[in-house]
């Protein structure tokens, strides 16, 4: 997979709406593997940082209670068409990824 984050950012009037989908197992650490019967170790995104034009716009903290392959949407003002939105996630095992998209 090329990138674990897909972003759509659209501006309407002065409001930019960002929708993103992240590819991640979001294991709570409480689920048993159906074959081995052993607990699957916790592995979930616990921080998501959204920036626009280099400035932080929103920061989320998550538990493993967010669904597998997480979806997030949010809106903000103060950006213009063509500006870049950057989404970064970090997980509890030290993994991370980030992706940018232009506001259309």
């Amino acid at each position: 997979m090329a990138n674990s984050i897909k972003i759509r950012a659209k501006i309407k009037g002065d409001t930019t709406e960002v929708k993103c989908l992240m590819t991640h197992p979001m294991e709570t650490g409480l689920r048993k593997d159906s074959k081995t019967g052993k607990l699957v170790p916790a592995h979930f995104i616990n921080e998501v940082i959204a920036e626009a034009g280099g400035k932080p716009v929103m920061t989320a903290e998550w538990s493993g209670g967010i669904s597998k392959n997480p979806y997030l949407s949010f809106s903000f003002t103060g950006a213009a068409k063509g500006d870049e939105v950057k989404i970064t996630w970090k997980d509890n095992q030290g993994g991370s990824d980030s992706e940018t998209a232009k506001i259309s």
Partner: protein
Amino acid sequence: MKMTQLALTAICAISATVVMADKKATDTSPAEDLKVYRDYFNKRFPGIPLNEFGNGVYAIDKVSRDSWEAIEEFPPYEPMIEAGEAMWNKPFANGKSFASCFGNSPAQRKNYPHWDAKRKMVVTMELAINDCLEANGEKPLGYNKGKIADLAAYMAYQSRGQKIDVQIPNDPDALAAYNDGKAFYFARRGQLNFSCASCHMESAGMHVRTDTLSPALGHASGWPVYRSKWGELGTLHRRFGGCNEQVRAKKFKPQGKEYRNLEYFLAHMSNGIEYNGPSSRK
């Protein structure tokens, strides 16, 4: 209310069953079957446009439809469509690619399943994908999930809007395959002694515990499917296997003759409905 529904169901089920199942599979033609099948679902779910049945249970269940629409807003299968696109574009070791088998357009959904007169068998899209890999010296893929579902998702996505148009040619072998699929569809099996039709025809719209049973009409349209339960994409034949196991019957091999013939029958019954895969389901 429940009783009325049940009684009505019984009546409808009897008429459809008599025409389509209690007789031998060979007693009615595909055209006659199609009419009975359509009439049955139209009567059962009046006012629902044909194409809506391509959305499965969401065509008839408003509550779950709300969640579904929210999920389809940015569906979890989108990254898999991209992975499938990369597969489509990546040359094999011999320099050729899937285009050498399918032609330049990945929008091939409408051509499957079809009767292959030379091979005397039903060919599905997944089967054709593996045939292509093997013909080019590549390793075939597992049929239930993973890469084959990614590629099928890309091809289905590019094909959205094409209508299911599965023909049963005037060929005794083709007709036999169709009748085999039809017989499978109406055959009771497993410890629960359910046929496909028991749940998705006779009891469509009713509940198994809290699940609303989806109408069989349109069942072939939206594959591959990202089931929340799976947390990943799976193929139609994977679901056939799951359904068979749920009635505590033996499941058959994906892309074996049984399921290919079943797909042939099922897809023919959904002729005219748009292919809209990939889709998300609960």
